[in-house]
């Protein structure tokens, strides 16, 4: 089969972007393994290369499989994901106080990564049902429940960063399924209310905005008042409960919210990461020449903070190239979703795009000090087998959908 034949069947440019990003990742991981203080990271790049090989296989298989196979296996994959997430809570491996990994003979497998695919496919299956009127609130109950179960299990590990990626997936897919944006806004109101309740005037503004949203949504007046009162009560209660907590209890909650992160170093990492990125200037210090990387000890420079290494060694230009590659993947993904004839295919693309965008966006904002430090890998770049394989597989699936737009 010639390349042009393959091109007819899959979207090669999408795959090319993913592979370039993965290559950059391997190079950066190699870089973090250099220098006198890198003993613990020597040779990791080679492992990542191995995962890249496995990931390529996963990508090819994912691209070759017809959509109806995904559709057919969605439910089984979802159930498997739940079983694995429960298993990890029982027999998982612990690192940094979080139980997230299953030890598969030396390879630490992260079921929460697998769960993301499973949730995307299962939500795709549910939401592709045309007989449901997706503009009602009642119709949201099933997809929300399907997301909340794995979400709760992942929070239990705890791994908040990955858990919230399921929320991003849910919202992206609901929106694509035709749920009105206002309905989605109503869904997040309780959480926003809890957060806003800590600042009096912000909370007042929240009520104003809430009134506007509810007014324009399709809720009946009874429900509408109910939601207003409920959110008000929730906010007040949150505030009251928080203030009545002992200092150590607050400490525990904060520690849960930042779980899995080396909190001793979190504030420190943020400072270091900013200095490292900033000192890269326009063109960077050059490959392997990052001084902050090799001297200033970023404990997670090969995983969560790899973007800082990129910023230091390749500067603004290097970072822009990477951001551009993400943009291309996202852009293409959305376009494929829009062109796909199959509703299921479109929904899967929307879910994948939401997931990648959430991971890439939040991780980069975190290294830039604009998002809280929650352990979260940067897709394609960060060291880690499960995440890399999953990212490549989902890109493969999208490329496959692109090549067979008319398939159901």
């Amino acid at each position, binding site marked *: 089969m010639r390349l042009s034949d393959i091109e007819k069947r899959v979207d090669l440019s999408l795959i090319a972007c993913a592979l370039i990003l993965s290559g950059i990742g391997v190079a950066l991981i190699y870089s973090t393994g250099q220098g006198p203080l890198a003993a613990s990271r020597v040779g990791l790049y080679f492992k990542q290369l191995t995962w890249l090989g496995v990931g390529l296989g996963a990508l090819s298989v994912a691209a070759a499989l017809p959509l109806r196979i995904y559709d057919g296996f969605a439910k089984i994959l979802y159930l498997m994901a739940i079983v694995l997430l429960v298993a990890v809570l029982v027999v998982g491996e612990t690192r940094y106080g979080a139980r997230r990994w299953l030890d598969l003979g030396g390879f630490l497998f992260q079921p929460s990564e697998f769960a993301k695919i499973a949730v995307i496919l299962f939500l795709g299956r549910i939401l592709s049902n045309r007989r449901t009127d997706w503009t009602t609130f009642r119709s949201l109950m099933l997809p929300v429940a399907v997301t909340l179960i794995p979400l709760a299990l992942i929070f239990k590990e705890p791994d908040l960063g990955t858990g919230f990626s399921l929320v991003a997936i849910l919202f992206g897919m609901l929106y694509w399924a035709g749920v009105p944006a206002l309905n989605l806004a109503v869904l997040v109101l309780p959480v926003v209310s809890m957060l806003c309740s800590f600042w009096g005037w912000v909370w007042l503004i929240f009520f104003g905005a809430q009134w506007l949203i509810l007014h324009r949504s399709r809720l009946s007046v009874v429900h509408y008042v109910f939601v207003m009162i409920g959110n008000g009560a929730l906010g007040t209660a949150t505030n009251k409960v928080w203030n009545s907590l002992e200092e150590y209890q607050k400490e525990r909650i904060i520690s849960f919210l930042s779980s899995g992160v080396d909190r001793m170093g979190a504030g420190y990492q943020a400072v270091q990461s900013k200095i490292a990125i900033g000192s*890269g200037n326009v063109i960077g210090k050059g490959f392997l020449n990052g001084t902050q990387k090799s001297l200033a000890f970023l404990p997670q420079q090969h995983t969560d903070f790899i973007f800082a290494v990129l910023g230091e060694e390749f500067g603004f230009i290097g970072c822009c190239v990477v951001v551009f590659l993400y943009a291309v993947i996202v852009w293409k993904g959305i376009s494929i979703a829009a062109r796909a004839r199959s509703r299921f295919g479109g929904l899967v693309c929307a879910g994948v795009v939401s997931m990648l965008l959430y991971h890439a966006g939040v991780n980069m904002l975190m290294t830039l000090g604009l998002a809280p430090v929650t352990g979260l890998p940067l897709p394609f770049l960060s060291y880690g087998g499960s995440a890399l394989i999953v990212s490549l597989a989902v890109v493969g699936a999208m490329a496959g959908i692109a090549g067979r737009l008319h398939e159901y």
Partner: protein
Amino acid sequence: MRQRSSHLNSKQTKALVLKVVAFALLAVVVGRLFYFQVWHGRAYAEQAKHNRVRLEILSRIRGRLLDRNGQVVAENIPSYCLSFDPYEKQFVSKDVEVDEVLVRISELLGLERLEEWRALVERGKEVPFRPVRLMCNLDITQISIIKENRARLPGVRIEARPRRHYPNGELACHFLGYVSEVTGTELKASGEDVYQPGDTAGRTGVEGGKEEALRGRNGKEYVEVDACGRKVQPTPDRPPLPPKEQPAAGKDVVLTLDLGLQRAAEAALEAYQSGAVVIVDPRDGAVLAVVSKPGFDPNQFSVGLSPEEWNQLNSHPLHPLLNRVTQALYPPGSTLKVLTAAAGLEENATAHEGHFESCTGSYRFGRRVFRCWREQGHGRVSFNKALEVSCDVYFYQLGLRLSIDKLAGYARRFGLDERTGIGISGEKAGFYPTTDWYDRQYGSRKWGKGVLLNLAIGQGEILTTPIELATFCAAIANGGYLYEPYVVRRELSYGSQWSAEARPLRRKARAFVGLSESTFAALRRAMEDAVSGIQGTGRLAAIPGIRVAGKTGTAQNPHGEDHALFVGFAPAEAPEIAFAIVVENAGHGGSVAAPVAGRLLRAFFHLPEIAHADTTQSEGSLETE
């Protein structure tokens, strides 16, 4: 409206909206990058060149352990450590080689630990600017040698660190546990927030069980350092550093331990090589003393054990690290006749005692002959007398009126087949066989019915831990409440005073052994007679002025001399303590374990000790099972 919503929902519009969202997000990233790398690029480059932020850990202090009267049983004393910074300026500038200095230290101190130090420094280099601790517990001569030669020893510092100290040495070592340095795997699993390299963690006993409360929290401080890792004054135009966090000391933990009683218990076992004593308060389950002999000196672990010392402890034939009170399973012997008696009373089997054969020193069952411990026999005995003199023949016949599973059922009700839940790790559960178990073990009907007779007198496959026996005894003393034994009375903030407060706590019982009040009363009476009766097997546990209840036991031990056991409680009318005593390989319960109980009780009720000669004399004349 309808039209607008369908327009809004068209795929093209939705795609556009998503693209705008994605674009906005990535634009923020690019904008922020521009701000850092281009706009403020030069400032950050400058900062990277000259300044680095370093995180310094401010060590916490471990909470103390106090006994129930406020006496300190574990505290922290300063210990001087030799630390070494391989990132000292002179090493970075290559004026001096790291190895040279290490050689100098070992020559000055006359120690042959060069290889060990080289490995430590090599490993320590992975974390820059954090000094490596070469050795701890320096003595005063070593300190002065280092101080005198300071000029020739760049990067070498003496730092004071708290060291766990147990002022009473071995006393109550299994109750308290010990601390030792955290291992690499623990560091990995817990995260830096909990443990830093070089921190200690509690192991076993209360130190292990209450680790979370005791350890406290490390503080942290961010300091700006230059390229060589030296601290510099923060300059005003730098972004502010995160605030300093003060370390928090661990909680002081008040134990249920009664130091005086513990001392008396250890003294009572003095003459024997190995054994166990556990004393609980039957009113709430408070553990007053835990003796497991032989013990170890927990101070050794704080100082750091050499591999030889560790091997010695570990391969010691009597297993000093084993907590015999919770981890050793003993056959309970006749002490468990009390259980058979309880079952007999509850199932009304004692009502048939008129038909029991009188004891002639043995009992024929089928073709087998089961002996009574007293060759001459006890003649015809009543229930009360049978328990007082521990007549085997009576209990064989009582057992035959019951069944294996009935007995096992009562054992289960008293919690003899499960962990008591004492807050000390590694507790084992006891075992009481059932017919199912025999079927599985030997095959269905491949075992003789005679096992029932053995079980009825506490022999056979039954296994119990001393703490189980003590809670069993406490439940008889308090009328059937099974309390989970507890070891921690309160947590206080570090350095608080604690004045003695001996009242039992109000606690919810783990389970209620629902036997009738008359059963408990009969058992208590019979156990009292076992100590105070003329023929009582536990006579040597008697003390003047206090009504003591108890039961002796002699457990056959296939590996050597019998184990001597004694369980009991006092005062019989309103029990304040319940206890279990095991003296390994020492002989009979009545002659060996009962006097130990007597000494404990004298200490508890503040009676003078009897002269040692008296004990031996009465021991000689005593007839025991």
